[in-house]
């Protein structure tokens, strides 16, 4: 007990030296069971660990669509959404959220990218990105069927194994695409707060779309297209659950922009 207290003090001490700690509350609409929520929790743990050293705290409030409408705009930094595409679009189009980053954490609907809303940030792979990745694979390997994913529990490279280990240790389950989306949204928001020292939604949205250089622990720095889609590699998984390749496949022109809708024009 005493030892635990000692360890807790040790972990908390860096926070004590910050006179002006920034407390950040994020809002989430969606189910609070399952992988998206577990990913959000993992992201929060990591954001708060970083915040201990730099003077920020983070929490996520689960609310409904109606409650978002009732919130004062000044209390909203970002809204995370884990619903279906239809509700997601409704939320992103709310007048009060025009300059608020709204994160799609769960839908692969191409329509959410084609609509090109300036405030909607899509973390998951779109259907089109998956199809393009599969087409690249099948060009070279017509007889071997694979599926396209944003994440895999056996992914090792680019420090993916460290993230998989942390997630499994904390959540007693393997990290999936949905969990990675939840984790990534929180981490890019905490990175933005740490670097800008601001929490207002317009600053967040501007930084996320223009200045973000995000380490998603899956390779190159991740950035957003003007469609609001996160550029990222796609993992190709065979029927035995093995990672067989990463798209863009070697030699394909366009790099990450060979996958999915590139721009709004």
């Amino acid at each position, binding site marked *: 007990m005493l030892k635990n207290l000692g360890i807790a003090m*040790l*972990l908390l001490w*860096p926070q004590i030296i910050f006179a002006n700690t920034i407390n950040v509350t994020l809002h989430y609409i969606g189910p609070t069971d399952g992988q998206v929520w577990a990913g959000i929790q993992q992201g929060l743990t*990591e954001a708060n*660990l*970083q915040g201990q*050293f*730099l003077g920020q705290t983070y929490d996520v409030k689960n609310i409904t669509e109606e409650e978002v409408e009732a919130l004062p705009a000044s209390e909203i930094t970002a809204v995370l959404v884990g619903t279906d595409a239809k509700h997601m679009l409704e939320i992103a189009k709310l007048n009060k959220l025009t300059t608020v980053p709204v994160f799609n954490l769960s839908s692969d609907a191409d329509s959410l990218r084609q609509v090109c809303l300036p405030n909607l940030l899509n973390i998951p792979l779109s259907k089109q990105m998956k199809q393009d990745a599969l087409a690249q694979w099948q060009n070279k390997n017509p007889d071997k069927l694979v599926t396209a994913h944003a994440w895999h529990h056996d992914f090792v490279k680019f*420090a993916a194994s*460290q*993230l998989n*280990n*942390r997630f499994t240790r904390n959540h007693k389950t393997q990290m999936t695409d949905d969990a990675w989306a939840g984790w990534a949204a929180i981490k890019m928001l905490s*990175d933005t707060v*740490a*670097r800008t020292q601001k929490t207002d939604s317009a600053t967040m949205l501007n930084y996320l779309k223009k200045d973000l*250089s*995000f*380490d998603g*622990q899956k390779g*190159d*720095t991740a950035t957003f297209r003007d469609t609001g889609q996160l550029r990222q590699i796609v993992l190709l998984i065979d029927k035995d659950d093995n990672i067989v390749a990463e798209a863009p496949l070697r030699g394909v022109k366009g790099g990450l922009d060979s996958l999915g809708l590139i721009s709004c024009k």
Partner: protein
Amino acid sequence: MKLKSILLTTLVLASTAAWAEPSHRAFVTNEKDNTVSVIDTKTNEVINTINIGERPRGIGLSPDQKQLYVAISEEGAIAVVNLDTLEVVKKLDAGDDPETFDVAPNGNIYISNEDDAQASVIDPKTGETIEVIPVGLEPEGVAVSPDGSLVLVTSESTNMVHVIDTAKHKVVKNILVAARPRGLAFNSDGSLAYSSSEVGNEVTIIDTKTLSIIKQAEIDLPNSKPMDIAVSPDDKTIYVTTGRGNSVAVLDAKTLEMQANIPVGKRVWGLGMTRDGSRLYTADGVSGTVSVVDTATNKNIKTINVGKFPWGVVVDD
């Protein structure tokens, strides 16, 4: 009090100045076959291979250059090798998943524990852990200042350089740098420190008096993922391995402008330099080689086959 610190400083300076005669060897950890390759730096041939332990990564020498230390990550230990016999004489408990370390002038070893978000300090004489210091996620690079007063640790997944005061063994400052910070190095008098950011593709210069960033610059090379750093003895040049950029970038130590880019093997990480700064030895992970670079001509002069996935290099020459 003051006298004591002056005495200490003198002692430290005396000890760092007292280089032993070099044995003209370079030592390379081979992450995937659990060995250390020993290279004769006069002939640039492998002259020995040491069975070291599971997943060797970080590598360094004791201040008297008589012992070689190797972080064997899967065994949670630092292997100690007698450099006369090349035998592993003991394994020091180093906490969970030790990745890299640096050795202070007083002999203490500062270690990053990758999976535990902490740095540990061990005394190799007693084998005891003196202190465990919480840092950010995935701590990686470690560098002790030349006078031993400061230790820097990078945390890869929380994008910080943590500054630890060795007198108190406490973090005194956290400096946010570009994404996925990895390598660290001090200049010769310790007034400046350099850090590399793998995903951000940047190098940062930190003023160690004010503990603030004085310059940040991107490395203008395709596929560059900056890793290990070495500073030339005259402090004018820094050398940075570029990972999947498969090269060593040569940068002006003040302006960070690129002066040359030297192709080496694939996925180059570890970097060692001779005392006079005339040659560099790089660990080319995917190629399974060590490249030797002549810094007078900035040319890769030799490629040496070593073990599987060479990771770190230390040079005793």
